[in-house]
């Protein structure tokens, strides 16, 4: 299983801190497509703004491979400091 975490505006709009995707093999982009297909609301939210991706707590491009057991995080551009 792939654990997927959401942060900030994305977490609030999806009303979801964390979800799981079973039997997944592919890129972060493909994982995002699976999440978008869950509902029209998820699709709208995930397409409405720029989404950044971290795999195992490292920022990666959406072309990065995701493997069984990885921790994936999806979030908006960061705004700390």
């Amino acid at each position: 299983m792939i654990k997927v975490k959401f942060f900030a505006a994305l977490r609030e709009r999806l009303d979801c801190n964390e979800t799981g995707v079973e039997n997944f093999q592919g890129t972060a982009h493909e994982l995002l497509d699976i999440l978008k297909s869950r509902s029209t609301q998820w699709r709208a939210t995930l397409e409405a703004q720029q989404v950044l991706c971290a795999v195992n707590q490292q920022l990666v491009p959406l072309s990065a491979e995701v493997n069984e057991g990885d921790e994936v995080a999806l979030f908006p551009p960061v705004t700390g400091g």
Partner: protein
Amino acid sequence: MTIRIRVQNDDFDMAAEYERLRRNDSYGAVVTFTGLVREVQGDHLQAMHLEHYPGMTENVLMTIVKQADARWNLGDVTVIHRVGSLTLNEQIVLVAVSSAHRVDAFEAAQFIMDFLKTKAPFWKKEATTRGEHWVEAKDSDDKAGQRWSVNK
């Protein structure tokens, strides 16, 4: 070289952090940057909430500091970033860098702030008299990060 990275709810004592860095006879320069919660133009800020990605945040900050250390001749570096609920004028972030030379201390402190702003997983939400909203990322911060990719 001593690197101190802290992500915490509590406020920090800027004077104590400065004193820690200045107590070394080899480093003649200390540069500090402090970020504070400031008023929202044309509105009134009531609170700011800072969310982060525990675990990843500390790793990203450590990576940024190590990149700065590889690029400049540094003494000690302290990075403290607060999370949770803050009010107007509270301290958000401290970056403090000591070095034998002032140019290294200035550039490294700027580099660390530029990358913290574009790579470290923190998100700000402002509550004003007109409601709550997530702060938008700024193009100027992306540009500030990009200038370090060209050798100067």
